[in-house]
């Protein structure tokens, strides 16, 4: 029982970390960034590269975030900006970008599967059950993600501008807010977070060029049922991630792997705003 609750909470935490970058891009720009999967993969390889250089795995955290953020800046300027008025085309273009990232990684590293040494391994005792220490760390990381993002949104000037753009972009622009800058920073932050998430999940899975794709679809579904709220994303991650864990353990892992997709599709049909409360 304890381990099942922990499974649900840590799975939700991982989903939250993986989807957070996609959510802020969607929330602010109303654009689905399908290169999110590519950015996740990139983060995985950042962890690998850091390990290959013989650096401590902790270095991978700032490296992958910065790398992702810089790539995000370039991508925003070249690809995303011309497509603001064509959101469906933006999905396609960013999907194409994901292909490009995947192929570049394959050209550099080949298609093989790599493993990265985890900085924290082993199990720890939780209420009489031994449980993976790294998964528990992810729980803390997810909470940190939520707290830091909320602090940025509610405690900084840029955050205030961002919230204004989320609520009413035309009005915000009319008040002299540089929404182009907000979009630029948001996309870059989203890409950085995606890359960071890719690094953070490497101890739990192998690193290969298709690392991000398997996560992309679930993250996409979670974001659509959450709207643009970090709180809704938390709820969605717990509910849908929980369903995934329970269905996998009581029914069959294959059904579990489809749980998020199917539940999200049904939920959005019945309640188009999903877990968001408007």
């Amino acid at each position, binding site marked *: 029982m304890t381990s099942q609750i922990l499974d649900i909470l840590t799975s939700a935490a991982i989903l939250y970390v993986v989807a957070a970058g996609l959510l802020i891009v969607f929330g602010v720009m109303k654009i*689905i960034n399908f290169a999110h999967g590519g950015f996740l993969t990139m983060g995985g390889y950042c962890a690998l590269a850091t390990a290959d250089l013989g650096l401590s795995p902790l270095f991978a955290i700032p490296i992958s975030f910065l790398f992702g953020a810089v790539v995000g800046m370039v991508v925003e300027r*070249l*690809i995303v900006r*011309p*497509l603001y008025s*064509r*959101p*469906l*085309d933006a*999905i*396609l*273009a960013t*999907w*194409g*970008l994901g*292909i*490009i990232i995947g*192929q*570049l990684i*394959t*050209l550099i590293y080949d298609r093989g599967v790599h493993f990265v040494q985890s900085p924290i391994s082993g199990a720890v005792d939780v209420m009489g059950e031994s449980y993976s220490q790294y998964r528990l760390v992810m729980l803390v990381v997810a909470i940190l993600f939520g707290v830091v993002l909320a602090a940025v949104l509610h405690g900084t000037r840029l955050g205030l501008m961002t919230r204004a753009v989320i609520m009413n972009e035309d009005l915000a622009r009319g008040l002299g807010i540089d929404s182009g800058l907000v979009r630029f920073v948001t996309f870059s932050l989203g890409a950085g977070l995606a890359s960071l998430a890719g690094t953070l999940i490497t101890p739990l899975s192998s690193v290969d060029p298709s690392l991000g*794709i398997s996560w992309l*679809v679930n993250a*996409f*579904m979670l974001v*659509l049922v959450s709207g643009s709220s970090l709180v809704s994303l938390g709820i969605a991650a717990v509910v849908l991630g929980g369903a995934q864990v329970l269905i996998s353990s009581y029914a*069959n892992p*294959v*059904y579990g*792997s*489809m749980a998020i*997709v*199917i539940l*999200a*599709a049904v939920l*959005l*049909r019945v309640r*188009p705003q999903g877990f968001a409360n408007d």
Partner: protein
Amino acid sequence: MTDRHAPVIATVGGSAASKLQFGFLAATLFGLALVILAPYALDTYTMNVLTRSLLYAILALVLDLLWGYTGILSYGLSAFFAIGAYALGLASTHLGFTPLIAVAAFAAGLVIAALVAALTGWLAFGRGVTPLYVSVVTLALPIVVKQGLLSGGVFTGSSSGLSGFESFDLEIETWFRMGGIALVILTALCWIFVRSDAGRVLIAVRENELRCRYLGISTVRVKTWLMIVTAMIAAVAGYAYAAYTVVVAPELAGFEFGTEILIWVALGGRGTLLGPVIGALVIDLGSAYLGGSIPYVWKLVVGLAFVAVIVVMPRGFLPLFSSAWRWLAATVLRKPVAVAMDAGLRLVCAPAQETISAASGAPSVEIRQLSKRFGSLKVLEGIDFAASPGELVSLVGPNGAGKTTMMRCIADGAERSGGEITITGHDIARLPPERCVAFGLGRKFQTATIFDALSVADCLRIARTSHETPSFVHRETSLALPQAALDVITATGLDRMLGVEARQLSHGEKQALELAMVLALEPSVLLLDEPTAGLTKSERMLIGSILTRLVRDHALCVLLVEHDLDFVREISSRIVVLHQGRIVLDGTVDEVVGSALVRDIYAGGHA
């Protein structure tokens, strides 16, 4: 049907049509000759690859109908391809291969694909869902089908799929020719279809779905049927793929493959039919040849080209080539190139029909205890109202009084929070706009809502869809419109601009066109939201006189939202004043205009 002897109001175009038909016939015959003769020139390997590419090109073709023409971005066409392929693979593997089983498997594939497509359409095109939701459903579909195939154990062969099952024993040349002929004929049929009157409806749905629904077209039905037909064609292509390659694998269903089809269509040129076909052939053949020697680089190049096309030239490569050809022909060869024009078109008057309300004797609109809330905010409350044929009722009131909201509630059963509404005696319950239109309602929006990419004539013809079922194969050469619509068109000079693309019209012409489109429905109740906003004084007077004549001569019931009180005073037979979501006054022009209450409301005082 159209009366051939009716007086012709206007004509447009004509001579280019026969030339276009000749070119089409020549191109089709050339295509057929090419695929029949090609096996003599090709080596076995190329023919082998191309046979597969031809089947893929069929997928690109039908995706172009869905996405390029109708605007439905589907990632899930691959699922239907896999359904067709596995129908044969499973049947042949488990039941053996006999002619009867081959036919049964074919039929089963078609039926399952159609059912799954109907379910997908029912999910994807539901009411109130966001435009992104289609992407959610069409992403979920291939994932579910693929996972299902992966978890099928021995029955589906799991991740390795099924292979080596018995199939049709045909020469490679025969396979190639069959695939080629199927592709050429299907392309030709699609070409005829998209140029027919029914094909225009697809473009209208893409351009402005809301307008279509308010013209009485059930866009959900159009899109679901298109989904079903394209799914069945994809399933046939999948069946042929399995029969030819004798290998089926779960990857056929995956959304990665579904997205690859999108890439072919985008690169070739969405909305051109030929572009997607060429895109699929070139890229798949390229993958077969270059994918071996420089595998990752080839995919990288395709990815780069895809992103570049989406960002820089969303119409794809084919339009680029055709405009380059036109430029070359015009400047180097000094030969004028015929540009495809509208077929000859005659504008005639449709025989007058008895309007619905005049027949039934019921009030045109009746509203009881209508309320509308957004959360705790009450926008409309306790509205009781009725209007009869021959009345022109103006709704006035300050901004935020609920005028436009009231219009919305009358036109769409899903809008209101409480109360009952009948139109020409029919309870609108929770019915969608297209059903309300069928009861005799016509709605003109505040901003001109037309089909930008279609010609004026096509916009008007789409408006007649519910009166005259459009042809799937040809374009009607005459356009019959009711007298009221003709009056608007002739008075505003639109009759001389039938061939002009609607986006090129001026603001006033667009407003007039939309009014004519709504009148083409022959409505009994007309809802007009600020029809004169942004018009010149003379255009305003013209619309005013047309409206009063409609009310007088055709016993129409018009509900008008208007800020221009002078205009209201001139044309109304009754005025209703809304304030803070309630009707505060309902009376004749003199009663309302002389009322102290109205002056108070407009002066910002407390009523």
